[in-house]
């Protein structure tokens, strides 16, 4: 029974991470590859607080994790979210690697590559922990659902589909992107904090780029811009390792097979359902109306690449 509770709790944590990522990626069109690193920021923040002040309990750790992540995301967002086009993806990947490098190299704070272990039991009751996690997931999902239908959600869609047009119509595209990035990172940190408190052991390897890709796969498979899609993706891909246990696969290969499956999903879903199983209704309407949804790749200017061959 404990095992089932543990699996459901982990799935709920994945759900929080996926719903959060869907806000920036699915709704705002920001190709965020830093989700795993911000899970790490949250996990380390909550773990360090739990070590320093175990009596503070459950909520302060999560709140501080979210606040630290939001602050860091604000600094990063102000600096990088003006970067246009594919350069932002490289910047995002770079940030993911740099943040993990920080986890590895700040040995005095983070425990280095071995991480932090034997974290104090903040919430001994597993069932209560599950209920709180599911409650947080429900709250995050409701917030995300409302956000998608709010004026900010419409602004984000406009930025996603054509940021120049959104800017021309008076929208503050940079600050809106920074705001949604902060929300995404803060919620990722909450998920990371929950994960750290649950496992009582965290190390940098848990927050590598593979986890970011897994989260992207969750929202791609489930459906971009739709809360239900993100939840479905988290359930399908987060539960994959458990499903694989019923197949005759050696335990050592479970993670590798999981990676092959979600990698294949990332390759195949764009052929079959380019916006996932359950994309937002805006996407469906746009297709019915024949709206062009192709995003032109930003050029560096006139004749930018002719000189590239000299």
């Amino acid at each position, binding site marked *: 029974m404990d095992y089932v509770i543990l699996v459901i709790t982990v799935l709920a944590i994945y759900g929080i991470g996926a719903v959060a990522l869907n806000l920036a990626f699915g709704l705002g069109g920001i190709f965020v590859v830093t989700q795993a690193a911000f899970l790490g920021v949250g996990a380390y923040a909550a773990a360090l607080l739990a070590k320093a002040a175990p009596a503070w309990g459950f909520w302060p750790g999560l709140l501080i994790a979210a606040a630290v992540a939001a602050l860091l995301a604000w600094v990063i967002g102000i600096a*990088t979210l003006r970067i246009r086009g594919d350069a932002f993806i490289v910047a995002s990947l770079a940030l993911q*690697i740099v943040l993990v490098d920080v986890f590895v190299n700040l040995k005095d704070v983070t425990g280095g590559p071995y991480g932090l272990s034997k974290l104090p039991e903040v919430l001994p009751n597993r069932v209560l922990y599950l209920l709180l996690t599911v409650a947080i997931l429900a709250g995050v999902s409701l917030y995300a659902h409302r956000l998608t239908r709010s004026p900010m959600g419409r602004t984000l869609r406009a930025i996603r589909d054509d940021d120049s047009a959104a800017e021309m119509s008076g929208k503050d595209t940079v600050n809106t992107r920074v705001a949604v990035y902060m929300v995404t990172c803060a919620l990722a940190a909450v998920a990371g904090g929950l994960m750290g408190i649950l496992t009582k052991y965290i190390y940098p390897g848990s927050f590598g780029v593979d986890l970011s890709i897994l989260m992207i796969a969750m929202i791609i498979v489930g459906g971009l811009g739709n809360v239900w899609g993100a939840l479905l993706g988290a359930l399908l891909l987060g539960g994959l390792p458990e499903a694989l246990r019923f197949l005759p696969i050696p335990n050592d290969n479970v993670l590798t097979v999981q990676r*092959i499956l979600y*990698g294949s999903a990332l390759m195949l879903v764009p052929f079959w359902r380019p916006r996932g199983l359950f994309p937002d209704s805006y996407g469906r309407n746009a297709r019915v109306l024949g709206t062009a949804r192709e995003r032109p790749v930003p*050029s560096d200017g006139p004749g*930018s690449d*002719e000189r*590239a061959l000299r």
Partner: protein
Amino acid sequence: MAVMYLNALVAGIMEGALIGLVGMGFGLFYWVTRIFHLAYGAIFTVGAYVAFQVAVTWQMGVLAGLVAGSVAAALLGVVIDAFLYQPLTRRGVDHHMLLVSGLGANAVIISVCIMIWGGLLKYYRSSGLEDPLELGPILIIPLQLLGLLCSLGVYGLLRWLLSATMVGKSTRALIADPEVAVIIGVSPRTVRLVIAAVTAIVAAWGAILRTIGVGVSPNMDLTVLITAATAALLGRRNGLGSVLLAGIMLGIFQNVGSILIGGEWKTSIALIVLLVVLTMQTWFPILRRTRTGGGQAAQARTAPPLPQ
């Protein structure tokens, strides 16, 4: 102290040349397809593993490994473009989806490598090329010098390919103005496949030169991808030579920076340089050079059109 910095500078130039080598391949693919090839690190890894398999496990020598690694990488590069990127481009899927499919391909290929070769680091037998030569106060590792010379050679080869061959001229036409290139008879599909193969071979050569010294591991794909992309991004404005130079500069920053703040930050140093440059260019557009020339099509260009 000065000698230490001098040695770091020399090592940086040589290591950076390899970053520039892979960056040239990455950049050339990007200029032709406008796709950030997120599976490029996986092609690098496959080239390295196949070369290792042939050269060390089957004991057929490094030259045979080089040929086998190049062929495997070229095939993989062509397969990814022909069966993933080109069909998706023809379907007109969102640009992010193209990138996501590359991420997926990367995950699958690296996982297959782990299943075949395991996750542990594999070393080449010592060839003597790793032992440093003393030139006064400067230490030079012959293998790194070979890497520098190969990078310069590949730069020359790519320039020759692009300026003196028919496929190179077609490539330049496609990059300059895809629509006009199609009108004058250039086949985007064929050019893309040739470029996919050529850039994959460049990745394989970089992989072999690098892994002879440091060993083959399935976890190197991301670092390679990101440093190559960094060199391509930093150098793209002035072409292949500039990408090579950007790679060398990154190598110097990494090695000199390692002395200042510690070797464990080596990868991060290159990435922080990238982040600082990109941020500065965004905040201070005057730092971005403006160019003249190019028609309307060049200004509005997206990916080269592919016939249905």
